[in-house]
């Protein structure tokens, strides 16, 4: 393990006291390293925001990122959304049928999709498909000195590489979320109505009763935070990639893991905050089956 600080050098090299000092030193180092990494990340985000407002990126740098984040991600988001909708129908149907409430299935599936699964699923797909790719691409640029070359030619790498990716994720994740919501609804409808023979009219009637504009807003609002977090985490990992193929691979993996953790943590915090907003606006709110 790491060496103890100098002030402890007089301590005996073995025994419980020495091990305890090492243990404290290791934890101290971990805390300091974590604080340094968090501070570094915050500064990275700050610089990206400053560049976003000081000089808008050129369209030639925006379009490829918009295409990669938006157009290329649509099929996979649509496909996974469809399956999630059907899975919800499969899992929910037998529980609801025992209570004779199978026509309420539409409300539960669609509310779950719009409020939670649609945004989280679209964000997870974005983190896996686009975030890792961004980290690997920027990481390769870092280790082959292409990022240094950009800076040496007077282009700011954050303005040139990070801001367009951030904008693409921020502006297009709501679109992907709407696609995930829509295809999930279609999948849920197809399985419930076409396969499980739930009454179509009541399926949609209950959906309309359950899902409000606020739910749709809440899902899309959350997705903006997810998209921002994915872009920033992935770009940061790429920019701070260590040398070699192993470093690039590690950056790609880390970008997905940290993005996924961030998505879930943000989902929880924003869920609590949005519920508080909902009950402030609608004090009598709260849905019942």
């Amino acid at each position, binding site marked *: 393990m790491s060496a103890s600080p100098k002030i402890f050098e007089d301590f005996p090299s073995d025994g419980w006291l020495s091990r305890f000092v090492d243990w404290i030193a290791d934890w101290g180092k971990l805390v300091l390293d974590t604080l340094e990494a968090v501070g570094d990340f915050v500064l990275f985000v700050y610089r990206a925001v400053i560049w976003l407002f000081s000089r808008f990126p050129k369209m030639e740098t925006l379009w490829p990122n918009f295409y990669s984040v938006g157009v290329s991600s649509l099929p996979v988001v649509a496909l996974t959304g469809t399956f999630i909708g059907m899975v919800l129908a499969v899992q929910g149907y037998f529980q609801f049928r025992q209570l004779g409430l199978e026509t309420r299935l539409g409300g539960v599936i669609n509310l779950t999709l719009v409020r939670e699964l649609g945004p989280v699923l679209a964000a997870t797909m974005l983190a896996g498909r686009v975030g890792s790719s961004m980290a690997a691409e920027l990481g390769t640029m870092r280790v082959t000195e292409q990022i240094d*070359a950009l800076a040496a030619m007077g*282009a700011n790498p954050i303005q040139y590489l990070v801001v367009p990716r951030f904008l693409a994720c921020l502006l297009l994740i709501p679109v992907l979320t709407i696609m995930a919501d829509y295809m999930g609804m279609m999948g849920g409808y197809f399985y419930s109505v076409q396969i499980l023979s739930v009454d179509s009219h009541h399926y949609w009637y209950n959906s309309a009763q359950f899902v409000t504009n606020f739910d749709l807003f809440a899902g899309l609002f959350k997705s903006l935070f997810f998209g921002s977090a994915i872009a920033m985490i992935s770009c940061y990992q790429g920019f701070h990639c260590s040398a070699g193929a192993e470093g690039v691979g590690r950056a790609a993996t880390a970008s997905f893991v940290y993005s996924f953790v961030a998505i879930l943590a943000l989902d929880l915090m924003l869920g609590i905050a949005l519920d508080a907003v909902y009950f402030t606006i609608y004090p009598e709110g709260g849905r019942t089956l």
Partner: protein
Amino acid sequence: MMIESILSQEQPLVEVRDLSIEFYGQTVLRDINLSIPAGQTLVLLGESGCGKTVLMKTLIGLIKPTRGRVIFDGLDLHTLSDQELSRLRLRFGFVFQNAALFDSMSIAQNLAFPMRQHGDFSTAQIQELVSARLAEVGLPKTVLRKKPAELSGGMRKRVGLARALIMNPEVILYDEPTTGLDPIMTDVINQLIIRTRRRGPVTSVIVTHAMETARRVPDRVVMLYPISRLDPHEPQIVYDGPPGELDQCRDRRVRQFVNGEAGQRLMELVGDNEG
């Protein structure tokens, strides 16, 4: 007053003052002082890992010093904002060791990049300058449509040189421009560097460990020695003088490098293996 006046008139274009750089607690450069007057061609010589490239990247603000300052034309680089530094870097050209061409762009886009990024140039002007610079480094126009991966190492280095020259910079920094090239291509690159200097007033800093380049190209040679092999109070610059006097230098470390002798290093390896 008179001395101050003379000093201000001869103010160097690039000045490094008491520069120290550490990475993760490990010192790479220690108390480096270096003045480079405008128009000088300087070679930074030294064995791998002695901090030559780190020093050069510090000259353009790509690496921040742990201590000390880098002053370019009277401006302390590390007090400038991102925007100010970006503008200042337009006065530099940087030839990277492996060219650092952008993979996703064609050679034409790579060459045009600095102009598109900053200059108010028309498409016709860009095409004209790109063709001219490409011709200067002896490459045919057919490479313009190709991607960097389709070119040989020597061609990539020449494209890197053409890209560094495209904005007519005041200072050109070359990071190991001949490493990994065959003797003929090494001579081509050396000649291109000499020709660039003759073409107009330019200050050049060349990082290399190729003695051929160090003898033929510069006005001045500065040799760095790795910190790990120095005593705490020994200076890291072990030679600073004209290239013609390198062979007469009596410093054992300089002689060993110039003559390419393993000497004590071989004994260390044997000792390590036996240990």
